[in-house]
């Protein structure tokens, strides 16, 4: 789904309303974590050919950060959730 995104808060919206950040990398490490973990978090990407989780910001709508599960080969999106659920573990 790369022309339209079904924002969980606003409904179906066009690509133009979104700002994309990129892959949901490894979680942000704890403060005291090893530098290698930080390097991985900041720089390394799985970049899969297929299913991919990524951050989209509905900057032209509700201004919420979303996580899309989208296939990079077919562009089909199987899931969109509010990004806060990554950490809070519930559907916002």
């Amino acid at each position, binding site marked *: 789904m790369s022309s339209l995104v079904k924002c969980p808060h*606003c*409904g179906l*919206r*066009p690509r133009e*309303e979104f700002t994309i950040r990129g892959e949901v990398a490894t979680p942000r490490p704890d403060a005291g974590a090893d530098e290698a973990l930080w390097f991985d978090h900041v720089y390394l990407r799985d970049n899969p050919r297929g299913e991919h989780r990524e951050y989209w910001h509905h900057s*032209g*709508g*509700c201004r*919420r950060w979303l996580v899309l599960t989208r296939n990079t080969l077919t562009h089909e999106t199987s899931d969109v959730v509010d990004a806060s659920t990554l950490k809070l573990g519930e559907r916002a």
Partner: protein
Amino acid sequence: MRDYPLENRGAFPPHVAAGAGASISLAPVKGGFVIHLLGDAKSDEAALKKALAKIAPELGADVRKSAPNQWFWVGDADVSSDRLTEIQAGLPSQFALADQTHGRVRMRLSGPSSRTVLAKGTMVDLSADLFAIGQSAMTQIGHIGAMITRIEDDSFELIVLRSFAGSLWDELNHMAAEFR
């Protein structure tokens, strides 16, 4: 200087007249208030409306959801800064308030062609069965972000950032010109 005359100027230059036409009209909404309400993660709209009705029944409860736990409270009455402070003080603690009366500009697009005109700007499907009276959407009209609210069958209110108001006004006028 204490009594220097103060004027609250609208975002539109004074000479801008409301465009009127057979099937479309565009008019600024002057005066009134726009208040941004920001709730914490557990806040809900019903509680908010209840609270507002209690604190400021005279201002109505036209509350338009802009994001999860965020609303624009809109009304046509003028609210003084003292009144605002009172309202702020009276709000339940899970809500914060940011006055946007000056930061947002309201305008109204009306007439049988209003939906057609808006379709030149926004992807949101405004057909009546999907976008009922009272419903709002934060969206983009062309390159400009705006909140669209259906006021009547053929009438929409737009809320736009003040700095963009002139551009949106011009753009809507261009888009509506063929129906004049």
